[in-house]
């Protein structure tokens, strides 16, 4: 280092000067020892000379800073308990927001890989009252009008996901892909173009209708995994679910649309059919994506299109459909990627982590304040020796920076561990994988937090210390000087703030824990233990014209049943709470069967299952029977319904079993089905949602002739296996069975039923886990703060307490004296905290299930817990106060 070399040079220079001066004196005949003494006197204070010379270099501030840091290290080494407490506190306080920030940054702030993603919006038809609880999309004729007349949009494109599961067949391998049919201009709307090859050919009108119909563009990930990243992929013939295509382009790395970086994607041109030229019930709907003109807000675009759509809707002949499609609503594209629920949960958690950070800062301030008071005499001495106030504050701030630097380092570590631990829980709710590695933004954010926390928590104590009057501090007993009382009061206020904030966090945590408890104890209606579920990737296109039940499912099931350890195995279009697929059905009912109903329409969820499913899930029949082997395509078609269905449609509400024997139109045209059994309710889509009417059909009775066959059997099917072995061991064996049935099935997802249920708890679980940590840390910090303050107060009042004892106070009185002080702080903190908790109830209300945001039990329990733990923390210093030996206390001064 230049600086060090220069320092050494200065030393050598002065050394040389000294030797030359001595040598000259010796030459003049002086005795060497005398000469040395004389020269030493002449030069004076060598260190000071060097100091002043160095000042000429202009780096003194740096040197001082290093000095300060070195001094700070020495000071901290002298009181390791203090240092550890502060560093641990700061680490906790920094880790929480850092971990939350990583997640929030990934989910909400990270720009999407499209040009100006903020201007991309979904455009949907809506009813006049603008009801839009599902993404409706629009028929081609409507969106064509929007494109022609609207002025708010730079461009409008559309897309639709191809039916069913899709597989891309290359020369050697087959891979499951997400397949989208898009408008020719869609990549243009997104502001991207293929990195390799070309985009779809656009006709002059902007929307290709039939040009280029056999071209396909593939994603970068697919290109690398299936084609080894070879440029000769262009022009290659591939098959997508049996249909031939030619690869014309590869999208850039990282591009994904709709955003889902985990799944390989392929895009081909949407083909408009005759049905697209009408506006009826059967007209296909497309998801419409528009790019707003710059400077145009989504609300303006929505207003314009709503006016436009009023005129367009006249084209709908059916009054009911016209009503449903006479408005427009617009939703931001980026906003649609994360569920509102998750987004709000993240915001709430970010706020909670901020509160924890605040508590940590308050606590550290308190600790530093206490330390500043203990060191008052040291500061006074330095002041008396001429140290400026600024210099003293600088010293304290150096200590603060050092502490928060260490805290930040440990905090980063903790944050990484936290993100890693919860990555699993988070993954389920987020569209993208959360990076485990911190990025520069996180580091920058953390540094900022560190500096802010250092400044926040050290400036005040430093200011106090630097401005304390010197004289009283130098005197004996000066610590009981006037301003100490004011400082005690300030520290008391800080502790009250801490208690209040902690209580708020703890109440939130308590409410969510009760929610999770309630969710876990909802009767699900089925068993969940030791069940493995495979969500099958069905290559439906390979079974055209065959009955998949006989050619695929039953043989597969038979083989799965014969694996060692399998107790029973069944198939169902979707397991309860699976959340992957559902189909709503409208059936007609014979009027004579249900005379008390106005409409003969039955609206219900439809599922198909095999007989053995009852053994797998162990669900209860309220009446009648479940399917059996006698239910075949040639026998009487049968349905099993659930309790919710019976409650809704049974002819006799008192006796739900009367629904048995009722006839419904079967899904196979022309045949009536008979209801043969009533299942007890099972949770279908979410644990917190009540059951809705459901009809189950026997898989073997659904034949290719029935309208829903393709949807039920060709797209959705779950294999559920009850086993007495470890699921981890079973999964590879099951996968092998699937692979033998068809190679494409090997890509199926496996999970356990316990996991399915756990996942269905939604964001509450994630929020509860994190809040547990935040709440626990907050409790710890506030107890430490209370204890620290009281311990300090007692140590400062030793003499006073001694005098009281000597004057006849009882030890119990002293105990009470300190506990009373603690109680005042605890009670005021708890009261303020309860107020805050009630006020912030609105934030958590939407996450709660089975408990109110103002739940008295939770509030009371948390308040009591905090009070008792607080009193426990106060008891130790109080007891020390009571044990004071009056003689020693008086002599000590």
């Amino acid at each position: 280092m230049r600086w060090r070399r220069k320092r050494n040079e200065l030393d050598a220079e002065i050394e040389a000067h000294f030797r030359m001066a001595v040598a000259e004196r010796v030459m003049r005949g002086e005795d060497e020892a005398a000469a040395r003494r004389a020269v030493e006197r002449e030069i004076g204070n060598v260190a000071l000379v060097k100091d002043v010379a160095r000042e000429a270099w202009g780096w003194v501030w740096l040197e001082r800073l290093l000095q300060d840091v070195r001094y700070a290290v020495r000071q901290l080494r002298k009181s390791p308990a203090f240092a550890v407490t502060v560093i641990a506190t700061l680490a906790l306080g920094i880790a929480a927001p850092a971990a939350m920030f990583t997640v929030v940054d990934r989910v909400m702030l990270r720009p999407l890989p499209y040009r100006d993603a903020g201007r991309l919006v979904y455009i949907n038809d809506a009813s006049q009252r603008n009801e839009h609880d599902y993404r409706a999309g629009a028929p081609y004729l409507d969106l064509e009008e929007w494109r022609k007349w609207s002025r708010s949009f730079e461009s409008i494109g559309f897309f639709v996901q191809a039916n069913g599961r899709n597989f891309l067949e290359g020369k050697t391998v087959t891979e499951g892909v997400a397949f989208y049919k898009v408008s020719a201009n869609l990549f243009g709307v997104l502001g991207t173009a293929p990195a390799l090859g070309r985009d779809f050919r656009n006709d002059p009108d902007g929307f290709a209708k039939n040009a280029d119909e056999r071209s396909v563009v593939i994603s970068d990930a697919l290109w690398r995994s299936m084609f080894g990243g070879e440029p000769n992929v262009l022009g290659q013939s591939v098959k997508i679910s049996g249909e031939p295509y030619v690869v014309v382009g590869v999208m850039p790395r990282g591009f994904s649309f709709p955003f889902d970086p985990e799944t390989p994607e392929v895009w081909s041109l949407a083909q408009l059919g005759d049905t697209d030229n009408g506006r009826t019930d059967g007209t296909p709907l497309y998801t419409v994506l528009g790019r707003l003109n710059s400077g145009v807000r989504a609300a303006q675009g929505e207003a314009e299109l709503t006016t436009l759509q009023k005129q367009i809707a006249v084209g709908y002949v059916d009054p009911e459909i016209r009503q449903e499609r006479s408005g427009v609503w617009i939703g931001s594209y980026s906003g649609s990627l994360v569920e509102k629920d998750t987004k709000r949960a993240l915001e709430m958690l970010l706020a909670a982590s901020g509160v924890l950070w605040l508590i940590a800062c308050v606590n550290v301030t308190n600790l530093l304040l206490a330390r500043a008071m203990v060191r008052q005499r040291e500061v006074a001495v330095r002041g008396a020796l001429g140290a400026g106030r600024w210099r003293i504050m600088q010293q304290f701030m150096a200590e603060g920076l050092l502490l928060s630097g260490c805290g930040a380092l440990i905090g980063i570590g903790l944050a990484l561990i936290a993100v890693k631990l919860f990555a699993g829980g988070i993954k389920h709710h987020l569209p993208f994988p959360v990076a485990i590695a911190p990025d520069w933004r996180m580091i920058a954010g953390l540094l900022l937090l560190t500096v802010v926390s250092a400044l926040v928590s050290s400036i005040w104590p430093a200011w106090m210390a630097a401005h304390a009057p010197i004289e009283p501090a130098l005197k004996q007993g000066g610590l009981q000087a006037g301003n100490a009382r004011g400082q005690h009061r300030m520290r008391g206020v800080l502790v009250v703030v801490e208690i209040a904030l902690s209580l708020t966090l703890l109440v939130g945590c308590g409410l969510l824990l009760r929610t999770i408890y309630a969710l876990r104890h909802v009767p699900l209606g089925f068993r969940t233990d030791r069940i493995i579920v495979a969500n099958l990737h069905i290559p439906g296109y390979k079974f055209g014209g065959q009955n998949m039940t006989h050619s695929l499912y039953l043989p597969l099931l038979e083989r799965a049943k014969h694996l060692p350890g399998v107790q029973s195995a069944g198939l169902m279009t979707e397991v309860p709470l699976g959340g992957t697929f559902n189909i709503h059905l409208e059936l007609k009912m014979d009027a004579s069967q249900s005379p008390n109903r106005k409409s003969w329409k039955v609206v219900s969820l439809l599922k198909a299952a095999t007989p053995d499913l009852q053994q797998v899930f162990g669900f209860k029949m309220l009446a009648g029977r479940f399917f059996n082997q006698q239910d075949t395509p040639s026998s009487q078609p049968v349905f099993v319904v659930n309790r919710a269905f019976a409650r809704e449609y049974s002819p006799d509400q008192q006796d739900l079993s009367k629904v048995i024997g009722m006839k419904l139109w079967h899904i196979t045209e022309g045949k009536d089905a008979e209801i043969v059994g009533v299942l007890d309710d099972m949770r279908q889509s979410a644990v917190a949602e009540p059951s809705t009417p459901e009809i189950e059909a026997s898989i073997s009775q659904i034949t290719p002739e029935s309208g829903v066959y393709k949807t039920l059997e060709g797209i959705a099917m779950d294999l559920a296996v009850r086993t007495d072995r470890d699921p981890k061991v079973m999964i590879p064996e099951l996968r092998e069975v699937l692979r033998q049935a068809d190679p494409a099935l090997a890509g199926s997802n496996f999970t356990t039923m316990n996991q399915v249920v756990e996942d269905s708890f939604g964001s509450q679980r994630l929020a509860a886990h994190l809040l547990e940590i935040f709440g626990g840390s907050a409790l710890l910090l506030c107890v430490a703060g209370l204890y620290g303050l009281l311990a300090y107060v007692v140590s400062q009042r030793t003499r006073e307490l001694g005098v009281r004892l000597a004057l006849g106070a009882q030890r119990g009185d002293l105990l009470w004296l300190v506990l009373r002080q603690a109680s005042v702080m605890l009670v005021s903190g708890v009261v303020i905290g309860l107020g805050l908790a009630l006020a912030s109830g609105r934030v958590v209300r939407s996450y709660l299930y089975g408990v109110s945001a103002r739940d008295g039990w939770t509030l009371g329990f948390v308040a009591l817990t905090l009070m008792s733990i607080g009193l426990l923390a106060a008891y130790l210093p109080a007891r020390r106060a009571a044990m004071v030996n009056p003689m020693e206390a008086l002599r000590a001064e």
Partner: protein
Amino acid sequence: MAKEIYKNRIELLQGTLDMLILQTLQWGPQHGYGISQAIRASSGEVLQVETGSLYPALHRLERQKWVESEWRVTESKQKAKYYRITAAGKEQLAENRDRWEQMVAAIGGVLGTDCG
């Protein structure tokens, strides 16, 4: 404080001391001790340059690029840091001299009138 005393002296001699050092270096490169001895000798033992003023002044002059330094071996086989005046230093010296002479003349004028 002791440090303050040194500082004050430097400030008293500031400019003047710099000028004397630069003037001394006109005769050739010299080390710190040599400079102090030369000033002492040429002032007839009147001006004693304190070490505490000399080295800060030398480092200040070096930072201003009026002098340069290098390590050399003295006649008595000692390693010492030699300072040499630069072109900019010579200009500065000429400027200082002018100002000094003006001031001496001015002060002399004032004193001369008084003595009359």
